């Protein structure tokens, strides 16, 4: 295990531990307003001060982390599964299934990532369900590309050839022989994809298309804090720093994993 990987895992563990223990670490309810103490600076009662509605920023930060981490990790699952499955099919069967999958892929990658995600969320209506659908619709392509490339190499190897010569059914060759051996690259990519996905969730939140207020979410907090950037920057920068630290932890894990696998 590389040092980068270890450091990233440790950092992520700290973040995950903190957001998991949010009720213990925060003295206030993240939704509790105190209109007499809006935009207050740090104090003993409010370590990071309060926002424009007098809510405790520290508490909101921790609870928002729950939403962002949970959605980020969960939203990678469907693209991973669907994309890898399509990559396996395209690479193994070749021919028209390959051509069809790759042509659809060409079309999806023609759209800038955020533009397509934003457009789909717009069409479906803001909210967490739409985020999942949009990220799945756009995110599968990377997994398909990676896995397909690996399959094209692996299917020429003796163990796959032997399985074919033995008349093993295609699904068995795909699941038992190819999948376990070609998915490691996809898993590594998934780590960096989680970063991109969390950033996308935060960005959608910032644009008002993600988790809907008053539920706390880092992007939405940054949007709410934007007007106060000059007089009370903590509103926008506190969640920003949280995003950056989380992103750094996940990037370090992805980098460390890649280095460990010699990629």
């Amino acid at each position, binding site marked *: 295990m590389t040092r980068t990987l270890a450091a990233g895992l440790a950092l992520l563990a700290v973040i995950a531990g903190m957001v998991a223990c949010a009720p213990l670490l925060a003295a206030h309810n993240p939704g509790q307003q105190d209109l007499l103490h809006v935009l207050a600076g740090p104090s003993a009662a409010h370590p990071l001060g309060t926002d424009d509605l007098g809510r405790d920023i520290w508490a909101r930060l921790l609870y928002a982390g729950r939403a962002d981490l949970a959605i980020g990790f969960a939203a990678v699952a469907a693209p991973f599964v669907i994309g890898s499955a399509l990559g396996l099919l395209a690479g193994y069967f070749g021919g028209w299934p390959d051509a069809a999958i790759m042509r659809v892929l060409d079309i999806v990658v023609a759209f800038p990532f955020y533009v397509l995600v934003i457009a789909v969320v717009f069409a479906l209506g803001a909210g967490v369900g739409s985020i999942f659908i949009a990220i799945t619709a756009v995110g599968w392509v990377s997994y398909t590309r990676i896995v397909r490339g690996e399959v094209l190499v692996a299917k020429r*190897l*003796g*163990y796959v*050839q*032997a*399985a*074919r*010569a*033995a*008349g*093993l*059914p295609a699904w*068995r060759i795909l699941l*038992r*022989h190819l999948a*376990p*051996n070609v998915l490691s690259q996809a898993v590594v990519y998934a780590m960096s994809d989680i970063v991109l996905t969390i950033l996308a969730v935060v960005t959608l939140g910032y644009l008002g298309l993600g988790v809907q207020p008053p539920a706390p979410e880092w992007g939405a907090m940054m949007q709410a804090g934007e007007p106060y950037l000059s007089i009370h920057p903590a509103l926008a920068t506190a969640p920003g720093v949280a995003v950056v630290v989380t992103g750094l932890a996940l990037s370090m894990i992805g980098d460390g994993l890649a280095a460990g696998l010699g990629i």
Partner: protein
Amino acid sequence: MRDTTARSAEAVLEIRDLSVTYGGRPPVRAVRGVSLRLARGEALGLVGESGCGKSSLARALAGLEPAEGQVMMNGRPLPHRRTREQARRVQMVFQDPYASLNPRMTAVQTVAEMLRVHRLRPKDQIAERARELLDLAGLPSQVADTRPAALSGGQRQRVAIARALALEPDVLVADEPTTALDVSVQAVILELLAHLRETLGLALLLITHNLAVVSAVCDRAAVMHSGEIVEQAAVPALLASPQHPYTRRLLAAVPRLGPPPG
């Protein structure tokens, strides 16, 4: 096991006018109208220089490559798309033992999978049979439950041979099974193949570019050149009086190899 007494003189495998063409620009005709017969229990050597189409022919026989022409197994056509039962008639051992085993499966699992999918044994006897086959292939029983990464090249090739034998094929195609192995192990693996052929009555198609290997293991040999069989004969005859100029050149390249004694 199989009935190996009947029809032992008949052709177990007969291919007629087999051609393999790879698509591309321009298309490569790797095998051009090859006809061969393989009798039950016979060992046929297939020799020829690199790129002459030996592996392509082998892959077509194993149903891994679409081919024109006919493959007859025990008098019945064996198509490119095979039923599970048809598929197990021809099994292959590949050149590179480092790529021929699934890295995630132990030796026993690799062999047992074949038995299970083909329902060759009742469920509760599969593991025992797999160990028996590995033993037959000379794999030390201590390593039967290890994954390929922990096995030597020779040991891996033994697992690959056991995997092929598990399906009780009529024909075993070994595509340069020793080329990637340490010299000290090559002879042992060849002996194993020769031994299995005798005891199991397997027909063996042994592909090599080494005439010494052919003379040690095979009854007959076919010489391939640019996708065609240019000569085939019993091994002693071929070595003593090669007819085709290409065979003569091939022989001249191995000066130490005289006609075998006796």
